[in-house]
């Protein structure tokens, strides 16, 4: 695990930025905070887009934040292959809105916000992260109104073929089925990974201690930090 600093971006309506910084702090990783109006990420080669309601999200979640100045720097870093990105919840929505990840997060199928503990499993091993082995399970909370991963069927099939379908909601034993789908995501998709860009709806930064319900978030973040092939 590299000890190089991780940048955490704060948009004006971000509200999981502090939790994310603290979670990374628990893992002993130096964190630099970046403001949405900043135009560069400094030396950081890893960046986290935390959860929240980046601009109030009265339009679509993440739609405005995707056009913030800092996102130019994120896109540049991704294009040149020097940046590793993690988008959590609203951060995932921003990545999709910016076109850095495929698909869209539509309103949950019951139209309501939902905050519950869920199980997710690694569906496909992401190329650059050896510690995310297929079948690995994590117990993580979700907290969102717009988390139903959606895109045309053929494109989702292509994502499967590309190995981009990273995380799926599942049962405690890893079984995948619609009964374990909390929000109506297609194929129970909880997270997507393409190249060095990863996004997921669950909140690993909240699952950082057994007394908070689970430590699996630390395990998740540790695995994310252990990316290879820089």
């Amino acid at each position: 695990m590299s000890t190089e600093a991780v940048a955490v971006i704060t948009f004006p309506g971000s509200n999981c930025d502090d939790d994310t910084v603290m979670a990374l702090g628990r893992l002993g990783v130096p964190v630099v905070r970046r403001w949405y109006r900043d135009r560069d990420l400094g030396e950081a080669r890893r960046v986290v887009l935390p959860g929240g309601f980046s601009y109030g999200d009265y339009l679509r979640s993440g739609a405005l934040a995707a056009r913030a100045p800092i996102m130019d720097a994120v896109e540049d870093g991704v294009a040149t292959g020097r940046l590793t990105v993690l988008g959590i919840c609203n951060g995932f929505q921003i990545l999709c809105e910016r076109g850095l990840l495929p698909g869209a997060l539509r309103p949950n199928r019951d139209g309501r916000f939902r905050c519950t503990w869920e199980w997710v499993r690694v569906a496909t091993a992401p190329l650059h992260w050896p510690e995310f082995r297929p079948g690995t399970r994590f117990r993580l909370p979700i907290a969102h109104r717009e988390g139903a991963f959606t895109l045309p069927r053929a494109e989702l099939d292509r994502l499967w073929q590309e190995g981009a379908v990273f995380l799926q909601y599942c049962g405690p034993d890893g079984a995948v089925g619609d009964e374990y789908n909390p929000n109506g995501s297609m194929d129970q998709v909880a997270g997507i990974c393409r190249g060095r860009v990863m996004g997921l709806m669950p909140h690993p930064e909240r699952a950082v201690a057994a007394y908070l319900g689970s430590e699996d978030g630390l395990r998740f973040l540790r695995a994310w930090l252990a990316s290879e092939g820089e």
Partner: protein
Amino acid sequence: MGPQDVGLTEAEYEAVCERLGRAPNPLELGLFGALWSEHCSYKSSKSALATLPQRGPAVVAGPGGNAGVVRLWDDWLLAFKVESHNHPSYVEPVQGAATGVGGIIRDVVAMGARPIALMDSLRFGPEPASERLLDGVVEGVGNYGNSIGVPTVGGEVYFGAGYAGNPLVNVLCAGLVREASLMSSAGARSGSRVYLVGQPTGRDGIHGASLLASQDFSEHPEAVESMRPTVQVGDPFTGKRLMEATLAAIATGWVQAVQDLGAAGLTSASAEVAYRSHCGMELDLDRVPLREASMTPYEIMLSETQERMLLVVPEAGAAVVADAVRRWDLELIPVGRVVDEDILRLRWHGAVVAEVAASALAGGCPVRTVPEDARWPRPAPALALEEPAFQPEWLPQVLAHPDVRDREYIYRRYDWMIQTRTVWGPDHDVAVLCLHEAPVGVTLALSGPGRWAAADAWAGGAGAVARAIGAVLLQDSEPLGLTDGINCGNPNRPAVWREFLDLVGGIRDAATAFAVPVTGGNVSFHNETEGRAIWPTAVIGAVGRHDHPTRPWPDRVPEAGWRLVLVNPPTVPGLGGSVWAYMRGNLGAYPRPDLTVIPQRLRRLRALLARLPEGAFCVRTVGDGGLAAALVKMLGPEGPGAAIALEPQALVGRLFSEVAGQALVAIRPGAWRAFQAGAEAAAVAYLELGETWPDPVLSLQAGTQGWSWSLAALWAAYRSRVQAPRPSHS
């Protein structure tokens, strides 16, 4: 425009004229109408509230400010208060509830505190008619709290016919502040500038305080419809930025006073700061940023546009504070200055348009005194309930009752874990938060079923306090303070007025008996429609310091073989006010809590349990649904089960009585002797119930009769309203 147009009585109008030495102009009349409203002046409740115990070793700031403040640990303080938003939530449930959340968050922020927790206390009419209202209110609470990033860590919901036209939405917010950053509205000094931050002022919510919150509802739907423009619209995104900007401004050290613009908007904020700071204020209303250019001074002063904050900053600090605010895309707008005389002077393009003493506005409203004979509660009503033979179906029925059943259908729509402090969330009887800032935690309880106060308001008030503090104590926490949300009908009706006094009396007597002060709260009157009032309802919030928050005392029994005991079993397990009685259609009167013994008994139980080894026991207070509900919740859906035996006499009472002070405790077999010995030494009374066993079945033996239920069936009843079926994805 006459006094009645702004909600003033003739007598009050005369008092205004007397204070001014002249007749007020229409703008001045509007100011008085707003600040002398029941909602702002507490004119009917002030004298009674003054009788509550307000001092205690932990109290840093008592009632009167934006929120009460208690010392948590070292220089870390907890600011907390409950506030109501009942009338707006009936008129427009989503926005009414959302702005209620926004308002109490701003109150806590105005103390300089960062909000760390919300709890909501809701009351609705019977289902199914109330379902849409509940859905809207829950949506509104969630919209605001989820967006602004403050977790809703618990709450309560009850149903009753009286709430059908008068739903209650009371919200508690708690926030953390270091002593050096503690703010108030009392620090403004002459010569400093007055600034507004936040939303531009619009025409929303004008007369919200005087006409909406301070009057009864009429039965006519069109009348409620016509009130809709008096409800404000919440914008949690601006609320979030305003919260951050205000806290950043305070962190500069330049801010002298902060006041949020809530009820009666700028009128209340400016008069309160001037009055509490013992100075005056001049405002140039033409400098107030407006959403609609054509607004008049009257509309500007009475607008209740949300997400606005008033800051008092000396000239020298203005640039630094403006920078801090601007980071959040907000502007520090100068609108006036603090002056060294008791005046609120309003100017409009240079000309003085109103000039009244700040003390007359904020402190001058004639208040209603408490009659001497109302200082003691009336005798308890004798409403004995007959106890019929036990019916086994009552157990699942009580568990499925709307006042008892699992509330997950509500709380899963709230983000209850953001800020990563929530060790215990809304799936427990109390919330337990760990702090990143200090080596202690916070325990929060919120309680106050109207059923208990329906026939005897004193019993209901005392019961709510005993329950909230009891829940804190039995989570091994030291109670530091209380906040009271009082909700009643029209105080001008003698019966309601007396109910109110008794309710406050019960709170006062119980808080005194427990030696836990009331540091602030809220009174909402006029919760009645066409002369039908709600049950007098005291929503009591209790906060405590937890010394081992990451290891809370468990409330779920882990395995078979544990002994089950009912601690503090009442000699007469009265059923009055209980869910069981409510279900049967004859509520009776809630048994008066015996305040001479309950505080000591609960403290002794806490001390006894604290001496047992960790993991040797689990504990729950007995509340809605009585011992039966507590037992089923302690066992959990998968078991272990339990075999218990009770006396056949008063069996129904033993199972379903909600008498205050009872606790269900399970003891690991190896610790049983230590528990027995400790209980004997500390004179803790208990009734042995039986023990847990591996079968996921609850069996009950009473004399020669026996019954049993599968836990799966009981939990299915308990969770009957939880899971809306998930439609399959196509």
